[in-house]
């Protein structure tokens, strides 16, 4: 008993440095996200506001524009990073990313449909986005159940890319039908956290908290599932129940992220990829590390999107794709997929 307790302490100590440095880095990136922007407020002025002074204009830009944007970015990054890690762990496929597999596209299509039919409130949009993500998740799981496909990561990704293409074509159709809706849909579909209303955050927060609770419940059984389904059953877990909980939390997380920022591809691939490299094979540690790394990646990408084309802004989805696609290529090029 005593040995096992001591062992646990030793393990968490070894794990502490990466987690602590990730949290520290997150703080830096968050401050950077407040200081730098495409607008006329310079970092020095922003610093003055943070110190309690500053002009009214700088104060407005910082508090009304950059602060909400930073918070939304952090929540989106958290949701996408965790969703990617969960989906990859459950499908045992290092390429299973919500954006690549069509879960985000399903969510985006649902939002587009809702906007076309006249949905305006934040709560309704969030709910619709989550339902779309749930449908996407169900399709992915059905696809992994097809014989031979579950063991073939790359084929699953191709199927996902096809599904995304189909849903995007259908979304484009919707945009052609109604010009007013098209403008609003384009606002969602490009993938950006700029100028998104804060009440959307309020609408998504309950479901993100619910998803986090479910993740805490499911983390231990999920680690047991990594040993194989039979081993998990032997250890007293219920694979079916675990899968259901994970599917629900992935749908809640991806749906919330899409409602906040539009469909963002590759974030759910990059974040768990880095977290796994730092944390090793244990899914619980990976999840812990994903929590700070997701916001770091998203905020960093957002800062780049503001500065690279200043005074204009580039869509955030473009930056994440430019960062994520080379990592996808690197994983595939390595040939030996990290086994999950």
């Amino acid at each position, binding site marked *: 008993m005593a040995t096992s307790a001591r062992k646990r302490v030793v393990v968490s100590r070894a794990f502490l440095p990466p987690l602590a440095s990730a949290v520290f880095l997150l703080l830096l990136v968050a401050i950077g996200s407040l200081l730098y922007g495409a607008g006329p407020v310079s970092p020095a002025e922003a610093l003055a506001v943070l110190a309690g002074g500053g002009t009214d204009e700088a104060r407005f830009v910082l508090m009304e524009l950059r602060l909400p944007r930073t918070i939304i970015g952090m929540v989106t990054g958290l949701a996408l990073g965790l969703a990617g890690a969960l989906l990859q762990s459950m499908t045992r496929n290092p390429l299973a990313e919500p954006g690549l597999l069509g879960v985000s596209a399903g969510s985006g299509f649902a939002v587009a449909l809702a906007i076309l039919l006249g949905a305006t409130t934040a709560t309704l949009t969030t709910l619709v986005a989550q339902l779309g993500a749930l449908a996407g998740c169900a399709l992915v799981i059905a696809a992994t159940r*097809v014989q031979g496909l579950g063991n073939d990561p790359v084929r699953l990704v191709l199927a996902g890319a096809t599904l995304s293409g189909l849903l995007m074509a259908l979304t484009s159709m919707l945009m*052609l*039908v109604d010009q007013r809706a098209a403008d609003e849909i384009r606002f969602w579909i490009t993938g950006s956290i700029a100028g998104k209303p804060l009440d959307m955050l309020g609408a998504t927060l309950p479901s993100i908290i619910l998803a986090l609770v479910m993740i805490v419940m499911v983390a231990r059984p999920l680690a047991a599932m990594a040993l194989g389904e039979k081993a998990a059953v032997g250890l007293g877990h219920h694979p079916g129940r675990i899968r259901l909980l994970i599917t629900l939390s992935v749908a809640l997380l991806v749906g919330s992220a899409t409602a906040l920022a539009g469909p963002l591809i590759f974030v759910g691939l990059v974040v768990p990829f880095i977290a796994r490299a730092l944390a090793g094979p244990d899914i619980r540690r990976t999840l812990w590390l994903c929590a700070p790394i997701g916001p770091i990646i998203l905020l960093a990408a957002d800062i780049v999107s503001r500065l690279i084309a200043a005074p204009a802004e580039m869509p955030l989805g473009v930056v994440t794709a430019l960062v994520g*696609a080379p990592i*996808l*290529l690197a994983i595939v*090029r390595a040939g030996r997929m990290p086994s999950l």
Partner: protein
Amino acid sequence: MTLPDKRTTITNIALFVVMLAAITASLAIGTLQLTPTEVALALAGQADPMTDLVVNQLRLDRTLAGLLTGAALAMAGCLMQTLARNRLATPGIIGIDNAATAFAVASVVGIGVSLAPSTMALTGAAVATALAFGLAGAKGTRGYRFIVAGIGIGAIAGSATQVLLSRVAIDTANAAYPWTVGSLNARSDQSVLVLAVGLGIGYLALMGISRALNTLQFSDPVAIALGTRLRSTRVLGLGLSVLLTGLAVSVCGPVGLIALLAPELARTLCRPGKVPLTASALAGATFMVTADLLGRTLFSPLEVPVGIITAIIGSPYLLWILLRPSQRSPT
């Protein structure tokens, strides 16, 4: 050069007839409905000025562009599938379409030279092909790895297009939008002409190496024993598929899945063991003209870009290929 067998000849004639029907429909149907007789009269130059304008000025150009792009995309697809020995390895799936589009958009929003879109699209197609084959390993035929490399390249190129469009005036970006999803609306006469010349040269060259291509369905040693110069066949074949894809994209943008569907149909109809280039071209031209016709008329007066139509029709089929539980691998 191999002489076509009986089954292939019959298939080609049948596909040609279907293509003629599609052309007639494309010329006849629209806001102004015409009968086939009226279309024939207009083509012969004996119709009233109004009909003459609609058929010979508006619809004929568009239909010709559709025929040429469809045939070029389908032949490029058939060729690349044969070279990679993988029926999923079509230019659209491995990102060549997107890269060609990104380069062509760069020329449209950046340089105002009239020939630029064609040459830039060609450059983009060549770069993407080199990347896809380079990244997936020396042989370039390692099944799905090759394709995921292509998905990554396609994503990067798609983002690059977005970056370019986000940096220009909103009007230019809006005008370019239908073209980035694949449409016959934004074509320039010059690119169509370049495509016609390229397609002619490409078709003749392909007929020249058709025997060598037929032997590629066997393993490398067998193909060599049959007298095929593998290296030069591969290089020439890849070069031709880059040429055809790049020129087609410079006219119509990335119209997906024609390069997958048309060779698929042609292979089902023709005699097994031959690479059905002519049949693919005919089927591709028919698909393109029909899809464009659907896009023009389904939600008239609204025009749905042809790329959206092919995506909606083709994607479920591709998903079926990928997801059906099969004994043999679909590669």
